[in-house]
């Protein structure tokens, strides 16, 4: 009887040792990680102020001033990617021209991401908050998303900042103005930057 018991215990212990051996024989190396790309994160945003006027619905552009922001929120030279100390000042002239603001989101590999936002236009909207009211006016040109829209100058001789904030998860059945001061209570933020602007009187513009 005693012998049988010992035999059983021995079997149990053998099973345990086998299990332990099975476990320790497993690899110590983790599975090689898969290289994931952050599809959601733009690496660079370019804001183009295109000066011009309309012929019908066609914009006749003259000059373009571009402000570029990189993924850590800092301003860079749009041509050389060199880091800038501060936000470049964009000068806007009052007159018969408007400034079409086109905003372009680029991935790290240079792909344009705007389509991803416009595909979900129903929940995305850009807001633009000037630090001084009554100086600028803005009209959405793309179903209230704000990737394309026109600024016009109402007052000259002003230096102001312009907060540009792209929000998602917005209920757009409610009409919200481009400069709604409660913008940061709608949905959540995709992108934010603060631009520096200066408005000046109209200069001579030779139209060919």
């Amino acid at each position, binding site marked *: 009887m005693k012998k049988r*018991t010992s035999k*059983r*215990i021995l079997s*149990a*212990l053998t*099973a*345990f040792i086998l*299990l*332990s051996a099975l*476990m*320790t024989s*497993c*690899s*110590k*190396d*983790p*599975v*090689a*990680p*898969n*290289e*994931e*790309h*952050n*599809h*959601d*994160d*733009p*690496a660079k*945003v370019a804001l183009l102020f295109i000066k011009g006027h309309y012929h019908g619905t066609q914009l006749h552009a003259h000059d373009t001033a571009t402000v570029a922001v*990189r*993924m*850590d*929120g*800092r301003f860079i*030279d749009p041509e*050389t*990617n*060199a*880091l800038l100390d501060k936000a470049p000042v964009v000068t806007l002239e009052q007159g018969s021209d408007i400034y079409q603001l086109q905003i372009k989101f680029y991935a*790290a*590999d240079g792909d344009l991401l705007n*389509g*991803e*936002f416009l*595909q*979900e236009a129903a929940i995305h909207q850009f807001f633009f908050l000037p630090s001084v009211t009554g100086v600028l006016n803005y009209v959405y040109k793309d179903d209230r998303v704000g990737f394309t829209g026109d600024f016009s100058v109402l007052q000259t001789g002003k230096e102001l900042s312009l907060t540009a904030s792209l*929000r*998602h*998860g917005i*209920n757009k059945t409610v009409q919200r103005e481009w400069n709604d001061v*409660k913008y*940061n*209570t709608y*949905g*959540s*933020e*995709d*992108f*934010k930057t603060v631009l520096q602007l200066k408005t000046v009187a109209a200069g001579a513009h030779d139209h060919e």
Partner: protein
Amino acid sequence: MFFATMMHLYIFATMVHIFDRYPSCLIGLLLAGLLVPLKVAAQKEWVPSASSVLDTVLLKEIRISGRKDPRVPVNVLSGNALSSRSGQSLAQVLQDVPGVSMIQTGTTITKPVINGLHGNRILILNNGVKQEGQQWGAEHAPEIDPAIAGTISVIKGAAGVRYGAEALGGVIVLDVPPLPFGKPVSGEAGTVLAANGGSFGGGFTLRSGWTSHPEWAWRIQGSGKKNGNFKTADYFLNNTGVRELNFSGEAGFRKGRWLITAYGSYFSTELGIFSGAHIGDTADLKARIQHEVPFEKGNFSYDIDAPRQQVVHRLYKTTVQYQFNDSSRLELWYAYQEDRRQEFDLRRAGRSAIPSLNLLLQTRSAALHWEQKRHSGWQTAAGATASYKANHNQPGTGVVPLIPNYKYMEAGVYGIQRMIRRGYELEAGLRYDHHYLNALGTRPFYRYVNDAGATVPVNEAGSYVKEVYYYGGERYFNNVSGMLGLRWKLKAAWNLSTHIGMAWRPPQVSELYSYGLHHGAASIEYGDSTLKGEQGYKWITTLQKQYGRLQLDASLYTQYIGGYIFLQPQRVYEQTIRGAFPVFRYQQTDALLSGLDLTARYRLWPALAYELRAAFIRARDIQQQRYLPLIPADRISHVLQYRFKEGQRINTSYIQLVSTFTARQRRYDPGSDFADPPPAYHLLHLEAGTRIYCKHHTLRLFATVSNLLNTSYKDYLDRFRYFSHGVGRNLQLRISYQF
């Protein structure tokens, strides 16, 4: 600390003497305690107060101390205590145990907190197997259904010797009911309905022996629930629905001295995360905190959208037990666990349907445990444990993983010796653990290069390129734990026990390797790959009176944790393309936690009983002389219970009113959190229950109204308190039929 503890021992001894001779003193003290929340309630007109979803359990069912380990305080929940909580999460079920609270991420994610510690500082045992999930995240609830358990025990001591690493704050043990060998078919079916959230669910248990083969027995169990958006006192919380479906089963063979069992459990949940908590940058967060309530009021819906979580946890275990002649027993088990966690965020271009986090954790573990109980009063237990874990980020998320892939192996041996004498019991134990971690992760880094490919300073012209960086490596951890316990039988019903235990835990991969933006927390977090393990020493002294008109359980504890790992605010913001986020770094310090857990029950008349539950905790970072964050505020509950006369068919009928007062957490360093702790709040809950017998059938009924006054409140331990309030009034009905 030593002086303070000796003083408390002296106070305990004096309390025993006074209350034993003059029980009316206790009544006076308890009534005085009752006045505290009443006073606060009177002040409530100008202090926004709050409530919780707590309901209550039948008092007698929370047994104090006992069979798990007599020297360490153990609270055991079974029977009505569990039935009256069916359909709730593990953390919610444990809310009436003094010293246990819960940390929440909104209404849908709850994690138990024992004496101020949670997550990887407490252990959860699923039928004896350490639950292995992704417990490193505050927004990761334990992947377990409390309905699998016949009893749930909460061990508050540092039980590192018996259970190994991570048992710093305590252990939650879910024991399945014993198999019904030789018994006929029996079972239970029940349903749970709740008004708030339109919740409905149910569960069943079926078990049987085999009369022609008495050596065989089996049991199956299942539960499920569905709820929609919860409502606070004033508004709905959008996207707070939950769906859950769980099963477990066990079969056993018992012959002679052998018992062989096979057990399996399956847990699956899909839960929404309150959409109002989805924020961009810190400016968003501040705006929401100032507004106090969500900007967009919700409505009721069962729909669950992103952000949401889907979690499936499977456990399979087989056990072999052998009973020797000399009262000793040998147990060997092997278990396999699989935990799959998928988290879905609001993403563009249809990617909300692709998980942003997709983790598969597989764990194989085995244990050998031997114990002997001799008639001479000597008891010995010894054993060995081992486990092998593999964590794998599933490819295709399109998001850089938060934690790396890793392999983790651990092995431990332990021995515990007890000596039981007529007037006292002594216990000592020792354990050695060896752990091994091998992690490998990848993340992209960006830099500027010139035309030749060389890195250029950020202020010079260059092309912007992405590079892949690998991180991780091997780490080894070794630890020796010990414990010493004494139980002293003071008088017939009075016991005084004291227990000193060591426990430890190695750093988690998230603490070692976090890097970058944590969207859910709106913060940038950096890990530290050089972090060492935490080493905890907990001294807990408990005074108990287990029967009689007065029942008492008072535990005083002090815990020192060397190398306590926490997220230290760096008081700087990092600008990203999404806005500015505060920076946090994982750091280590030394922490000291002390507190008192009290449960006192007094039978005023044969049918009327009063119970006082209180929990106080003080926690400091003793290196920096600061308060530790997210420590539960002081809480006092009063319960008045009336038990109806026992009948032949209808019995165990009761009605009880519970008043719970949660103080404002004032032990807090200003500026260390996004918002100051919320004000104190006072809640009332009403519960009634009965049991109806008919031959061999039993019907159990419970009706509960939690947050009876529909109080609007915020709890300090709710991580979504920045955005919203807690759940409002909730009427719940539970019916179960046993046969």
